[in-house]
């Protein structure tokens, strides 16, 4: 263990004491011995030792790595914005190429296609890729929220049941689709009872404004924008039983092959998490600058986000729910082993407290 790390673990005071011992003793003998050459040699040795210690302390023991990270340009990617803005990637010896996408689904696709080394997306694209036979693993959750992805409906007092036979816009393959399914389910409807319109995210607002859809299943801030853009009264509903998570995922073979780089990446995210905890206003300002959301609008959504680098049973629970839905929809030709979609080892080795996931394997 490097002396610097050892010092960090033990505390500054003992390190100062231990370093001051040879220095003070040398100084003592320098002052009192009548042999200056001996004392000078001793002092030189101590200075050299101190230099070696300092080099060992300040020089990173891990080499630089380059990594392309695909992610959606959403509030849920706040830790990525903070890590980049504060230079945590660089400080961890990483060169991270950021690859923004409109939705996490596309970011995952980029990962699958090999255009990115890692991707951040909600859990749904991960499961969908698994159903497609893609071997991806989640390394960590970067956020959770219960009131971000929802459904906006036209009219006051509108009921989800009233959507029967009407067009509802949703980007397919995203968690919004799962949220829509849940909301319909608890009102006795299925996708067959409505007209599902797969709308790309950039076109979603336009379709909403033109009245092409009666409702729109999406996330903030688009939900909020849609509410503002609507000419009539709207209402937004959220699922009582859904908690969204943005997940850092990599190709399965890379989780071991690029372990060093991924560890540094996670370290950068952990530093961003600490920064968010210590400077929440500054963190929010960074997100606001990156997403160009009006501050007052962001302030409305911000309390619903929980930015922690974790791996929890909640993720597993959601994955299981979604896996069951996929199975019911016949979209997954084989049963997905959700436990296989998560690799907790890396995060656990860095921060055991962050991994509360009970392994069921």
């Amino acid at each position, binding site marked *: 263990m490097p002396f610097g790390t050892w010092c960090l*673990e033990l505390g500054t005071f003992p390190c100062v004491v231990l370093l001051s011992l040879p220095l003070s*003793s040398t100084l003592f003998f320098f002052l009192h011995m009548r042999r200056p050459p001996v004392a000078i040699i001793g002092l030189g040795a101590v200075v050299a030792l101190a230099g070696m210690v300092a080099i060992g302390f300040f020089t990173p023991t891990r080499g630089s790595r380059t990594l392309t990270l695909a992610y959606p340009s959403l509030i849920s990617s706040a830790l990525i914005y903070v890590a980049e803005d504060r230079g945590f990637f660089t400080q961890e010896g990483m060169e991270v190429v950021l690859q923004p996408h409109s939705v996490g689904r596309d970011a995952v696709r980029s990962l699958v296609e090999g255009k990115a080394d890692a991707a951040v997306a909600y859990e749904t694209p991960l499961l969908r890729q698994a159903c497609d036979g893609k071997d991806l693993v989640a390394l960590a959750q970067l956020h959770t929220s219960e009131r971000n992805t929802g459904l906006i409906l036209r009219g006051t007092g509108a009921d989800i049941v009233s959507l029967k036979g009407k067009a509802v816009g949703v980007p397919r393959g995203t968690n919004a689709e799962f949220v829509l399914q849940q909301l319909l389910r*608890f009102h006795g409807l299925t996708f067959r009872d409505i007209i599902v319109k797969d709308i790309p995210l950039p076109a979603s607002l336009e379709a909403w404004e033109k009245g092409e859809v009666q409702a729109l299943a999406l996330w903030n801030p688009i939900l909020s924008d849609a509410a503002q853009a609507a000419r009539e009264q709207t209402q937004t509903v959220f699922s*009582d039983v859904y908690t969204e998570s943005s997940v850092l995922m990599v190709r399965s073979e890379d989780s071991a092959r690029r372990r060093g780089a991924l560890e540094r990446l996670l370290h950068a995210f952990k530093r961003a998490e600490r920064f968010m905890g210590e400077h929440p206003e500054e963190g929010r300002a960074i997100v606001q600058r990156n997403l160009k959301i009006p501050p007052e609008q962001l302030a409305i959504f911000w309390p619903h986000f929980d930015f922690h680098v974790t791996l929890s049973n909640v993720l597993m629970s959601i994955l299981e729910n979604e896996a069951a839905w996929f199975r019911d929809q016949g979209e997954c030709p084989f049963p997905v082993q959700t436990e296989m979609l998560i690799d907790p080892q890396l995060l656990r080795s860095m921060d055991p*407290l962050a991994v509360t996931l009970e392994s069921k394997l």
Partner: protein
Amino acid sequence: MTLAKKILVPFGILIAIWGTLSLYLLFQFADRQRELSRYTDTFLEIHDVNHELANRGRHLETDLLSYALTGDAHMLPSIRSAEAAERVLLEQLSTLTLAGRGKELTEEYIRSRDKVRDMRVQAVEAIRLGDKAAAGFTLDKWMILTRASQAKSEDVNKYHSILLGQHVENGQRLMQRAMEVSTFFAALCILLLLIFSFYLRSSLIRPLAELTRQVRKVTEGDLHIFPAGSLGTDEIGQLTSSFTEMTAKLRHTYRSLEEKAERSAGELAVSQEQFTRAFRDSSLGMCLLTPEGALLEVNAALARMMGYAERDAAQVRPLDIIHAEDQPFIQEQKRAMISGLHDAIQVEVRLLHKRGYAFWALANASLVRDTQGVPLYFIVQVQDIHRRKVEEMAQSEFVALASHQLRTPLTSVRWTLGRALRTLRGKVDDGDMRLLEEARRATVNLAGIIDAMLTISQIEAGKVTVRMEDVCVRDLIQALREEFSGPCKEKRLGVRVDIPPTLTLCTDRRLLRECVSNLFSNAIKYTPPGGSISFEAGEKGSDVRITVSDTGLGIPMHQQERVFSKFFRGDNVVMHEPNGTGLGLYLVATVVRLLRGKATFRSREGEGTVFSILLPKEWRDH
């Protein structure tokens, strides 16, 4: 820097650092232990509550599903009761003191349980109303929320379990670190002590060894030593410096002593030669005696005086040539000299000539001692005084005889004059009366002189027999005070007697009275009216000292050496008292000598005189 600082400062630094480090580790460990204990309690409580909540949840799930299937309203109280118990448990969970992520997870869990409860209430209501569709949806949602809540419960448990594990691990790690630090510090201390021992060797042991070597050289007599290397400012340096300085002074002193010894040896040889010549050629008889009394050497004059050839004289035993009657006295004087009572003595002694007759000799003896005071030998000078002694004895006999013969007619004259003064008073004129009075006074004075001379001559002729008895000094002096009260009163003299009533000594009362009476009489005579006279006495060792002090005319300094001579009178008293005999103090000295005592005085002219008589308390025959 002093030696104490040199030794104590490094040890002090080490002990201070060690102590600080130990305290720091101790406090750290105690903190970790407290934290661990706190988390253990929290974890156990969370675990218990969660476990209980899970049990309640399962029961509720069973009850709710049964209720949904059967619609039996009797199950509602059981469901309500289970819900109440769940609320209590959740409140208990919310009161736990948690922080950070643990708190957030717990709060999320509690919120999820609230959602589960809300959904359950909705489900129960739907079942109660018989709305099967709503009941189905709410039960579905309730099931999903229950699973999500269970997941959060597991998160909470897991989180605190890991935290507990981390605290345990931290405690163990701290212990391990403490061991590592202790080992490291011990190694460092050993290293520093090694350095310090080298330092001590160079600054303490080596100078001490060098100093020891130099001391050994000095012990062997070699004073030519010089400091090796530079001297420090510590005690060793100062000691070495002082030692070098001391040996330099010693060298100088030794050289001076050698020179002095050489000079002294030369002077001693000259002195020895002079003494030998003086001894050999002296007209006085001289001899050297061992402290035991054996003759070492006899000069020619003494050999002649004793009637021996010079070579035979050395063979004579000294006691064989001393008159038998004088031998005890001589032996006592010798012992007194050896014991240190006297350094030198002068005695008149009768020696025995080779032909057998005795003759008087004056012997002066002094004892020579070595530097430690051990007696080496006596140097004795002997002078033949036989003729003078015989003449003195004859003279004393004559004086005694004359005095005795004069006393009878003188008494008759004194008596006659006394009677004439009494009978002719008023019948003759005053001028004739003054002449008669003057004649009577002269007669009395003459009688005093004759009495004194008679006493002195009797003492000198050895005809006075000392009669010893216990004498109370105070009583004797009080009697004299009574006797002389008339003249004292006449001259308004204050007389003070400060003598313990129990003070006695064994002596001749008559002779002691003669002495004190003479001193008292002199004090009255020569003390101006209104003066004072004091008597004091006390023991001094084996003697008794009697002092008579007055505030009289005193004795002129230039005459003080002749005070105890015959017919001595001070120049300052002759005009004041023309009728003195000048024999009083001579008589005192003679009597005191007879009583084996010593008379001394101290006086200042115009201020007074103090006479002291020192007499042995006990009388021992020689």
